[in-house]
């Protein structure tokens, strides 16, 4: 799949499904979320947001290692961003009930990627540009160009939660 994401695609994505993402995604985490308010520094309509901040780019490379940070910490900011039109979030870990409600209400999807496999994931990044808040250092907002970036649907637009399912299957 590729941004911009529409409601039709969102409706098709089912919990547990494995997806590949190509094209434009934005990377942001804690400090950037605090600055977003109702005006993230990119067009949120149909956007894909990745909770991440990479290691510095070595000479000659496109990017350093990059992987998901814990999405749970972004929960307080998420409903407002989904209201603005962000459709896909990529991270690791659980989401709150209020985020799940917002996912259902605004038709969005939460994807997970394994944490701690950032050297391997970096191979899927084709371009990286700082687009906002350079003063935040590693927490600056990035626009990334990705190819076949792998992820798993953890919460679908109906609010089905993979972590809950894994828990009740025990």
């Amino acid at each position: 799949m590729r941004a911009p994401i529409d409601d039709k695609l969102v409706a098709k994505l089912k919990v547990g499904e494995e997806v590949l993402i190509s094209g434009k995604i934005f990377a942001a985490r804690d400090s950037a979320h605090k600055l977003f308010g109702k005006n993230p520094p990119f067009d949120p309509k149909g956007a894909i947001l990745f909770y991440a901040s990479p290691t510095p780019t070595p000479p000659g490379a496109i990017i350093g290692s990059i992987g998901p940070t814990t999405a749970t910490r972004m929960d307080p900011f998420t409903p407002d961003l989904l209201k603005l039109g962000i459709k896909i979030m990529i991270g690791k870990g659980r989401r709150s009930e209020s985020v799940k409600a917002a996912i259902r209400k605004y038709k969005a999807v939460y994807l997970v990627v394994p944490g701690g496999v950032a050297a391997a994931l970096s191979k899927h990044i084709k371009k990286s540009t700082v687009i906002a808040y350079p003063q935040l250092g590693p927490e600056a907002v990035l626009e990334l160009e990705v190819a076949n970036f792998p992820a798993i649907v953890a919460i679908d637009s109906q609010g089905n939660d993979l972590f809950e399912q894994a828990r009740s299957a025990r």
Partner: protein
Amino acid sequence: MREVPAKEITETVKDLCIEANTNLAEDVVAALNKSLAKEKSSVGRKILRQIIQNAQIARRDKLPLCQDTGLAVVFIELGQEVQIIGEALESAVHEGVRQGYEAGFLRKSVTEDPILRKNTGDNTPAILHVEIVPGAKIKIGFLAKGGGAENCSALRIFNPSTDREEIDNFILETVEAAGPNACPPIIVGVGIGGNFDTAAYLAKKALCRKVGAHNSGHAAQQWEKELLKKINLLGIGPMGLGGTTTALAVNIEKRPCHISSLPAAVNIDCHAHRFKETII
């Protein structure tokens, strides 16, 4: 007295920062491979394979295993017959971290003030623990401690009459609450005894033990084995998506304590367990 130049400590810390962050230790890789052979969930096996493959890529390309290259935690066992020449020990350590994080293209993840949260830009200050020990050697251990797993840690002070089962339940509850957020399979460091700060320190120190090595005390060793079994029966699995591999190890460290208290601390580390040590 044996004289050791402070520069040598700086160089050693610098190398350890890079080595720990890019080269997953053999004991961790072995534990991951062992878990892969036993893991019952197919998603779990897939994630374990990704983790093992990531370690190979990181080693080959000298890339950090994880984008969170951690808060630098440095453990020094300083022989009392050593005299450090030049800079102060603490400055030498911070300088090593500064150089290592710069030269290794590691992420700078330290904020100057916990409330204002401005990045210091060089990953210092490190957290430094120094123990004075007999002898003329310096043992330096480096742990890159990621934030996600650290956030899932806990400390509780129990009644002295508390039985082991109650402490087990606290540890299990902590691991359950951590769930997917701590990046399982995790390593569980448990500190029991001492006081408020010592229990936490012991839990962190317990993480520095090689995966698969047990406490030298027989009872603690049994306790570690039983706890590991119980944790892996929780079914959290790799990345919390279900499975039989939730923890790779449980390491317990104990210390005498006051007649009125029984402190217990649980410090969690993720599968990207980045600890390396060396002796000067």
